[in-house]
């Protein structure tokens, strides 16, 4: 983990990349703006997932649950009371209650973090692959509840009429905040302790690291960020239904994390950009390109097959992702040091 302490270059470079992308897109056509906005939302979600899974080495299949919880809470707080009356059966106080989107989103994300703490308290003391299985169970539980709790979530029907407050700029601000929080957390002492547990649970415990506690801290932080992503998504789409946040989203976010490299923040952010670019290419191919007599328009599933193939190829040939766990700031720093004639004063090893 050399070079991570005081690594301000990485978040700065990532912020610059995201900022430039957003700025360039703001001059482009509305369709392109939507694509970049979506990418920025995924940056928030995947950076959230990374803060936990990347630092702890415990794959989580349950972060989509945190997104979902936050998205529904934010929806309930921001939808116009009349809509809520028509669609749902809420207690009167909640039905009348109305907040602007920003405080509602913050409350919703905090609620996701709270739920993460409640779930994490028992689950995070488990070892090996068992906590991953538990996060899977969490995903299914939230899905079943969202599908059936008609009075509050609208059940299988979609909730509509959420204020469309996610613009490219709000998404950018949240993405920058997410990168900032994740970069800050992984440089703190707690972040370093958690990465110790990732490398070797037994050794970490033997030097007195409280594995469950460190994991819970990370889980709460990451649930907050992922929750923020869920809120952004809800106010980007304007509608919500239980299938918005289920296995497909879980797969997509995991693919983004793994393709870039789950072991570094740079990998997480750039993985999102790469996968989003690939998905978008395939989506635009659906306008009817015919290759060797195969009509791409008629074939649903092409995009998913391509994504899965790319992910598999990367997993097989580079199991640590494209970035292999290094941070862009460190890589660039080493590169510049090697090029410059005068070595910098900071020790390089």
């Amino acid at each position, binding site marked *: 983990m050399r070079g991570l302490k005081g690594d301000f270059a990485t978040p700065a470079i990532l912020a610059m990349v995201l900022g430039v992308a957003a700025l360039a897109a703001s001059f482009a056509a509305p369709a392109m703006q939507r694509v970049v906005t979506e990418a920025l939302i995924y940056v928030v979600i995947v950076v959230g997932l990374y803060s936990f*899974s990347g630092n702890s*080495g*415990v*794959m989580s299949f349950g972060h989509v649950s945190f997104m979902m919880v936050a998205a529904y809470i934010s929806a309930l707080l921001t939808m116009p009371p009349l809509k809520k009356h028509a669609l749902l059966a809420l207690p009167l106080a909640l039905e009348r209650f109305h907040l602007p989107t920003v405080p509602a989103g913050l409350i919703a994300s905090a609620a996701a973090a709270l739920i993460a703490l409640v779930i994490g308290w*028992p*689950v995070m*003391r*488990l*070892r*090996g*692959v*068992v906590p*991953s*299985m*538990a996060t*899977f*169970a*969490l995903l*299914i*539980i939230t899905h*079943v*509840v969202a*599908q*059936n709790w008609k009075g509050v979530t609208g059940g299988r029907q979609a909730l509509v009429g959420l204020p469309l407050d996610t613009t490219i700029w709000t998404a950018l601000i949240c993405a920058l905040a997410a990168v900032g929080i994740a970069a800050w957390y992984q440089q703190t002492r707690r972040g370093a302790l958690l990465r110790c547990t990732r490398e070797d*649970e*037994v050794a970490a415990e*033997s030097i007195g690291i409280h594995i469950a506690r460190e994991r819970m801290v990370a889980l709460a932080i990451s649930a907050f960020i992922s929750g923020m992503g869920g809120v952004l998504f809800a106010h980007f789409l304007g509608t919500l239904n239980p299938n918005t946040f289920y*296995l497909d989203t879980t*797969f997509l976010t*995991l*693919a983004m994390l*793994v393709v870039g490299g789950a072991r570094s923040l740079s990998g997480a952010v750039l993985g999102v950009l790469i996968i989003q670019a690939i998905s978008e290419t395939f989506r635009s191919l659906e306008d009817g390109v015919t290759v060797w007599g195969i009509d791409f328009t008629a*074939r*649903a*599933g*092409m995009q*998913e*097959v391509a*994504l*899965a*193939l790319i*992910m*598999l190829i990367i*997993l*097989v040939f580079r*199991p640590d992702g494209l970035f292999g766990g290094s941070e862009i700031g460190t890589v660039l720093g080493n590169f510049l040091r090697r090029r410059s004639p005068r070595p910098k004063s900071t020790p390089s090893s």
Partner: protein
Amino acid sequence: MNLVQTAIDAINLGAIYALAALGVGLIFSVMNLINFAHGELITAAAFTVYALDGQPVGIRLGAAVVAAVCLALVMERVAFRPLRKANPATLLVTSFAVSYLVQHLVVLIFGARPIGVSLLPELSESAALGELRLPLLEIATIAVTLALLAAMTFFFRRRPLGIQMRAAAEDFTMARLVGIKANRVIAAAFAMSGILAAVLAFYQVAQSGTISYRMGVDLVLVAFVSAVVGGMGSLTGAALGGMLVGMTSVALQTFLPPTWRPYRDAFLFGLFIAFLIGRPQGLVFRKAHRVRI
């Protein structure tokens, strides 16, 4: 006589889950892989049965077994063998990707809508036994599962390859040191999981009559839960865990108040989390699987 009916339902579902858990547990025991793509073996077998509609039943079932076994072997060779030394989290994500790939290949070929298939419709009748009505299909399911379990027990206790597989499950490195071929044992495990998946596909097709590209997912999730409940790495445990989870599911369905019934799976998975906290090592715990320091 409702209680007898419920008991048969419970044993039936338990038998189905036990087979699913065995398929997952088998792979885990030899290579520490939680094979998410096991569900797609079931899907592949079911779609083979559908694609050969009109052929004699024997050919349809045989081809389905062959398809599932081939797919299992291909998965192992292409995706999992290169990653054999990777950590379990990477393997889990890989199997998730394989599963997603196969699912959407099915969508590409057959489309995303559920399809109706009929297989052995004569089994959907009930035999009357006094006042009791015994659904033939459930009885057949239970009988086939018991026969399969007996055959597997024989294989693991008496056949050389079965004994090698048990040795590999006990301690993979040690087994290799005494000359057991890793590739052979792992390929055999995948082939067997293919056979188990094909049998599960027959149950699914015969009992529900519909197939879809997502059909394997629900089963494989329950299979994970069952295998973990039974104790990862133990085959007896996997079968027991499957039985227990299936019976719990039917019990919840029967005894939950009607307004809560739609939440059955939430309760089931909630109980699973509670079980994990109380007994993370599972029902059957093998000392060899303890993390050594």
